[in-house]
């Protein structure tokens, strides 16, 4: 019962934070001057190596598995299109979001949480500065741009490594691999995945900010907020993935 109450308490607080973030869009001019670019820089360049590494291995694994499942049932010449669609629609956006949730979501919760327990957020309020506009809005806006950008990087990397693996493990030459992609590529595969990643960007940054603002009880509280941010955003990403997939591809 207590856990249920706590769940609804956080859901309410999160919704209020979302509304306050939307309200703070009035002052978007102040955000775009400096903090937005700073967040873009931190989020993108800090995450690119991790995203590339994850995409390399997911490209390799997917190719090898398709080779295994498809042998004897489906023409392996179409392994390219199978991997590309899987990567663009599902693996690219979701894996990137889960990786970024662990890095950026946790970072946001820890940073804002520390500011909460050391009275830095109170200090902002005392100066007449809206902490939501100052801390949350730049992160959410940056997340909305960075997640699709990182997803494109992940898609390209996974498809490229998959084409090499297809040649190496299954014996499908690279030109046939890409020919298959060209033949069956539908723009919806790409933009659908990017729309998903845009929503994942909002989820990761909003959830991280919420747990940061909800932090209490010193260093222990910061640790708990960080863990909660990663767990909550991962669950929300998987839930939102289902909803968005049904809305876009059904």
């Amino acid at each position, binding site marked *: 019962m207590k856990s249920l109450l706590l769940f609804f308490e956080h859901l309410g607080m999160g919704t209020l934070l979302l509304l306050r973030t939307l309200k703070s869009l009035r002052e978007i001019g102040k955000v775009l001057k400096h903090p937005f670019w700073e967040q873009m820089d931190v989020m993108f360049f800090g995450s690119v190596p991790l995203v590339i590494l994850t995409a390399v291995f997911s490209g390799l694994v997917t190719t090898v598995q398709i080779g295994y499942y498809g042998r004897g049932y489906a023409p392996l010449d179409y392994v390219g299109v199978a991997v590309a669609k899987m990567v663009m629609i599902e693996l690219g956006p979701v894996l990137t979001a889960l990786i970024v949730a662990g890095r950026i979501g946790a970072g946001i919760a820890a940073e804002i949480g520390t500011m909460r327990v*050391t009275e830095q957020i*109170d200090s902002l309020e*005392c*100066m007449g500065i809206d902490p939501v506009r100052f801390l949350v809005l730049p992160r959410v806006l940056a997340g909305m741009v960075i997640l699709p950008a990182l997803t494109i990087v992940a898609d390209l990397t996974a498809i490229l490594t998959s084409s090499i693996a297809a040649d190496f493990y299954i014996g499908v030459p690279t030109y046939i691999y890409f020919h298959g992609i060209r033949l069956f590529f539908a723009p919806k595969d790409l933009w659908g995945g990017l729309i998903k990643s845009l929503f994942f960007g909002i989820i990761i940054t909003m959830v991280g900010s919420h747990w940061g603002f909800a932090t209490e009880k010193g260093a222990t509280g910061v640790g708990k907020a960080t863990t909660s941010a990663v767990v909550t955003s991962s669950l929300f990403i998987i839930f939102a993935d289902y909803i968005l997939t049904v809305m876009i591809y059904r």
Partner: protein
Amino acid sequence: MIELIDVHKSFGKKEVLRGVNLKVVSGECLVILGRSGTGKSVLLKHIVGLIQPNRGKVIVDGVDINRISEARLYEIRRNIGFVFQGGALFDSMDVFTNVAMPLIENEKFSDKEIEERVMHVLGLVDLQDAAFLMPSELSGGMRKRVAIARALVAEPGYILYDEPTTGLDPIISDRINDLMIELNSQLGVTSVVVTHDIHSALRIADRIVLLSNGVIKVNTKRSDVWNVDDPEFRDFLRVFKALKEIE
């Protein structure tokens, strides 16, 4: 003028403030004295609306701050500087940017004006050389002085100090006391200081109030402190006397 009328505040079952009535007159330095955990900081945070009372009113310059819009509250806060106990400096910014923050956000000042005003207030707290250090590179006393500079930079009418000398050595404490006296007398800033440091209280205060058990038990001019009968207040004075005798 700041006025608290019958302010009550509880956290869960714990009643921290049980009907506080207090007036802070413009230009004075009021010290709120009390033992640790008596709700002094909670009381101070009510004045800027960081904490809302369960019952009662907090009036700043004639406005009940708990009955106004957020935008109006931010406007009122811009006329109040708040010096937090730990300084509450922004870790990711250097001293200069920390102090400049209220001016940068105001958007009325040119870069040159901001630089002049920041260096001026850093000069007042004797920290011009530390302008480009990060907060992590500062000592406790320096952090407090940067926090005072930041509270001062927008030239507020009021400055609220939360335990400004706690955790500092006696020499730095005395420098902070001198600084508060100077700001009060030279710039005419109204100050409210929360402390349990009786030595500091007797140096800087025009008036001292004692917060105990959630109410104001003593409210006296500094010149009349030795005539107060309250046993808890006399305990504070005894500590002060003992220190003086050792000196």
